[in-house]
C-alpha cells in the first residue's frame, strides 16, 4: 500500500510538469545578520526551494506554487507554503479588460510558530482601460480571508485602489494612485497572550510580546487610506528612473496587539500594511548593463507610526509614547535571464531608528538565486 502511494506521488509529480504550460524550479540562498530585525542581531542563513507551474485551459489558467524555506541557525523558523489558483482575462473592448483571480494558500510553520500557520482565500478583480493612447486608468479590488493556527489573528480584509497615469513626449510618466483598505479581526472577544520564547531572539524582559486587548466591545477593525505619486523617466530602452512618494493614514481603529514584529522572510501577522500610518519616499534606477544584465538600485526612506502600540523600554516598561520608526533602506538587485535559466543577486541594507529601543536596529540582507524554467504546451 505504502509503495502504491509512493508510486502515485512520484507519477503525479512527474506528470504535472509534462502537462503544464510552464514549470519552474528555483533555489535561493539568503544570508542576514539580523534575522529577527531587532536590537539583538542574530545571524542566519535561509535556503529556499520553490516550484511553480501553470496550465492554460482556453481563457482560464490554473497555477500552483510551493515553497520550502529552511533557516539554518533557527530551524524552528522554517516553513513551507502552497498556493493554488486560477485566473481569467475578459476583454471589455479593444482598449480595456477585466482580470479575475482566485487563490487559496496554506502556510505551515514548525510547532514553535504554529500560531502563524494559516489557510487563506484571496479574490482579485481588476479593470484596466486606455483613456487615450498615452493615458491609463486601473482599478483593483482584493478580498482576503486568513484563518490562523491561533484564531486571535483571523481576519477579513478588503482593499480597493485606483490609479491614473499619463505619458508625455519627454518620455516622462506621471502616475497618481488612491487606495483604501479595511481589515476586520474576526475574534474580537478573545483575550490572551501569545508568548514568544526568549530563544527566538527577544531578550531584556520582553518575552511575551504579542498581547490581545481585553476589551471585547472595542472596534476590532482598522481602516486605512493612502495616496501615492510617481514620476518615471525613460532614457531609451536601456534606462529607467523613477521617484515616488506615499502618504498613508489610519482612518479608524488601531493595532490590537501590543507589538508589531517583523521577521526576515517569515510573515508575522502583527505587521502588515494596515499596522502603520506615515509616509514613504523612494527612488529607483533600472539599467540594462552589458551582457543584458538588469541592474536595479533603489533608496527608500519611511516614517511610520503604529497606532495603538506603545513603545516600551528593554525591560518592558511603558515609555508613554506611540511607537514611531524612521527607516532608510538601500537596495541593489542584479538579474540575468537566459533562455531557460535566470540568475538573481541582491543586497539590502537597512537602518531602522525607533523610539522603542527594541526596534532600533540595522541589518544587511544578501540573497543569491537560480531559477530554471521549462515551457510546454501549444507552440503558438
Amino acid at each position, binding site marked *: 500500500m505504502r509503495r502504491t502511494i509512493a508510486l502515485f506521488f512520484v507519477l503525479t509529480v512527474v506528470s504535472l510538469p509534462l502537462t503544464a504550460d510552464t514549470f519552474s524550479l528555483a533555489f535561493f540562498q539568503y544570508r542576514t545578520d539580523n534575522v529577527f530585525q531587532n536590537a539583538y542581531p542574530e545571524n542566519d542563513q535561509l535556503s529556499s526551494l520553490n516550484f511553480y507551474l501553470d496550465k492554460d485551459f482556453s481563457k482560464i489558467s490554473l497555477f500552483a506554487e510551493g515553497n520550502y524555506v529552511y533557516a539554518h541557525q533557527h530551524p524552528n523558523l522554517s516553513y513551507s507554503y502552497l498556493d493554488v489558483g486560477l485566473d481569467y482575462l475578459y476583454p471589455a473592448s479593444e482598449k480595456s479588460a477585466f482580470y479575475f483571480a482566485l487563490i487559496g494558500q496554506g502556510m505551515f510553520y514548525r510547532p514553535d510558530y504554529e500560531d502563524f500557520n494559516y489557510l487563506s482565500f484571496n479574490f482579485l478583480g481588476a479593470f484596466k482601460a486606455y483613456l487615450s493612447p498615452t493615458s491609463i486608468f486601473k482599478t483593483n479590488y482584493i478580498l482576503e480571508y486568513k484563518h490562523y493556527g491561533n484564531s486571535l489573528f483571523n481576519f477579513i480584509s478588503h482593499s480597493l485602489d485606483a490609479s491614473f497615469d499619463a*505619458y508625455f513626449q519627454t518620455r516622462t*510618466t506621471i502616475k497618481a494612485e488612491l487606495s483604501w483598505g479595511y481589515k476586520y479581526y474576526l475574534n474580537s472577544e478573545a483575550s490572551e497572550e501569545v508568548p514568544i520564547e526568549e530563544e527566538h531572539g527577544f531578550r531584556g524582559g520582553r518575552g511575551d510580546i504579542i498581547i490581545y486587548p481585553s476589551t471585547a466591545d472595542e472596534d476590532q477593525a482598522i481602516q486605512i487610506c493612502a495616496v501615492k505619486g510617481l514620476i518615471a523617466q*525613460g532614457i531609451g*530602452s536601456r534606462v529607467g528612473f523613477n521617484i515616488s512618494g506615499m502618504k498613508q493614514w489610519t482612518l479608524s481603529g488601531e493595532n490590537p496587539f501590543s507589538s508589531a514584529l517583523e521577521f526576515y522572510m517569515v510573515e508575522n501577522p502583527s505587521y502588515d500594511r494596515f499596522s502603520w500610518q506615515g509616509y514613504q519616499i523612494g527612488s529607483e534606477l*533600472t539599467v540594462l548593463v552589458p551582457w543584458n544584465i538588469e541592474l536595479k538600485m533603489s533608496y527608500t526612506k519611511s516614517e511610520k507610526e503604529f497606532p495603538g502600540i506603545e513603545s516600551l523600554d528593554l525591560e518592558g516598561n511603558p515609555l508613554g509614547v506611540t511607537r514611531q520608526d524612521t527607516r532608510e533602506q538601500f537596495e541593489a538587485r542584479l538579474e540575468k535571464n537566459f533562455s531557460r535559466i535566470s540568475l538573481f543577486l541582491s543586497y539590502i541594507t537597512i537602518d531602522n531608528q525607533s523610539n522603542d529601543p527594541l526596534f532600533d536596529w540595522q541589518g544587511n540582507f544578501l540573497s543569491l538565486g537560480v531559477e530554471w524554467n521549462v515551457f510546454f504546451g501549444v507552440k503558438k
Partner: protein
Amino acid sequence: MRKGFCVILLGLLVFQSAVFCQTTGHFYNVDTEKKIYGTIQRIIMEPRYKDASPFLIVVIEEKKTKEMYNVEISPVRFFTHDFHKGEELEVTGSQYSTDGQKNIIARQIRYRGEIIMLRDKKGFPAWRGGEMKQRKRRKGKRF
C-alpha cells in the same frame, strides 16, 4: 509492478511528444526571427488564437525604416505592463506577414531598462504570471 511503471512512464513521454507537436494557425518560427527598435504608435487587445484570451498588440514604427509592425505580446501582459504611445521598445521575435501587414511574435522585449521574456528560444510561451500571480511570486523579501 516494474513493467507497469515503465508502461505509465512511456505513456507520459508519448503524451509529452504529442503536446510538443501541436500547432495552431501561425506559430513561432525561429528561422524568421529578427530584432527591431521602434516607437509605439498604437496599443490594442485583439483575438489572435482560437480558444485563447485576446492578445496585447502594440503597433510599432521601426526607427530606421519607418515600417509599421504589429507586435504580439501576450494576453496577461495587458495587466502587468503599462505601455503608452510614444514609448520606445526593442523587440526580438519571429516575423510573419498577413495581407501585406508585417507582424512579429515577440520573444523578448527591452523596455525602460528591463528585459521582458515572453518565450523561450524555441518560441514556447512563457506568459506565466497574470496580475495576481505576479503579486504572489517571490524572489526574496520586499521590505
